[in-house]
């Protein structure tokens, strides 16, 4: 179970970096909100991995792999930021607000579960 958080940290970091670097329709972020939420997802899962991974068995240096991927994602996000709309143009503003709120609530619940 503890190892799963490590794999999830890699997966979420990769998804964030891909969404920031890619301009394609499938993987690319379609709005600044998408980008922010994807980045926060990656950071929260990274945080969970830091707390739960058995670091006496797994080398702590492996931690730097997802960190480096997230860092690359942050760099790409800065480059793409100005070219993205605040919310997705194909969805209503109301949809974006509800989606963002639900997403943030789930992340907050996860953080509370870990350290609350």
């Amino acid at each position, binding site marked *: *179970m*503890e190892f799963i958080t490590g794999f999830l940290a890699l997966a979420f970091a990769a998804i964030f970096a891909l969404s920031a670097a890619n301009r394609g329709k499938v993987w690319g972020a379609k709005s600044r909100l998408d980008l922010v939420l994807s980045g926060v997802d990656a950071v929260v899962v990274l945080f969970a991995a*830091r707390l739960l991974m058995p*670091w006496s068995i797994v080398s702590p240096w492996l931690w730097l792999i997802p*960190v480096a991927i997230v860092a690359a994602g942050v760099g790409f996000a800065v480059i793409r930021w100005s070219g993205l709309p605040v919310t997705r143009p194909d969805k209503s503003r109301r949809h974006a607000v509800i989606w963002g709120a639900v997403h943030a609530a789930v992340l907050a619940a996860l953080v509370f579960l870990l350290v609350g």
Partner: protein
Amino acid sequence: MKNATRAVAIGAAALTLIAGALALPRPPALSGEVTGDTELVGTMRELLVDSPGLRDRVSVAVIDGDDVRVAHFGASGETEYEIGSVTKTMTASLLADAIERGEVDADTQLGELLDLGVSEAASITLDELATQHSGLPRLAPSLAQTVSALVANYRANDPYGASVGELVASATETDVGEKRFEYSNFGFALLGQALAAAADTSYPDLVEQRLFAPLGMSDTFAPTTPDDLDPDAPTGYTASGRASDAWTLGADAPAGSVRSTLDDMVLYARAQLDESAPGVKATEPVTEVDDLGSIGYAWFTTEGVTWHNGGTGGFTSWVGFDRSTDRAVVVLNNTTASVDELGFALMEVK
């Protein structure tokens, strides 16, 4: 403009990387502050190489009759540890002692001591509880307990904390299973509370009066809430190296809340070895248990070694003895890495 954006992007990525590097996990390592018997310290170093998992503080004692050798890594004889389920052997001693006093019999039913009404649990005998043949599940089967155990895995906190009333209420609602060996914390919690009720006192007072005080274990106690601990009471580490909350267990204290020191546990182990401990009959095997050998009241006997281990959210422990070789061993550790192999190995070391 494009160059400026690129510079900001590189700067942001670099800052993220630096922040991540600063947050590099730093799990504790076996303490370099070592004291005790030189030969035993050397033996421990060799054994710990083959014993995987996180280490920080470890204290061990090897007792051969009157000769006691100790080794401490980052600790002293007075360092406090949670001993976890080794507490069950103490609850077992209380049962054997209460039988000697005539307060209860092995066949006394739980319902005679606790208000269990006409529930299935009321007919469970103290003997069945002490030998882990009660038919009760490992934990109280309440939704609150299940959720608490699940959450505790992620928050590194104490999953227990029910009151005696809540514990008894859980027992009245429990379906009792087949009377075969099934290790039950729930059962031992009920056993300890039943013995306390029989003596008209609380479990912490009972174990203090009848076991710790007679053996001179002045630094050993059974907390039931965090308020019972010193503000600077030691806590241990989870497998990830995260600091764990102290476990005080509430009404489940008889199953695992005792805190002790190596010096005190040496007194306890020696008293089991030379049969001077109150309620020492608890150590006598009563029935066979698959794979483990046999079980007495809490104590397992495997290939001549009578032993019990313990584990909480941040500590593990092992106590064992063999009267045929006149040896006893105590291992206390402040991480969740198992010390069972260490304990058994030390029973064999020359």
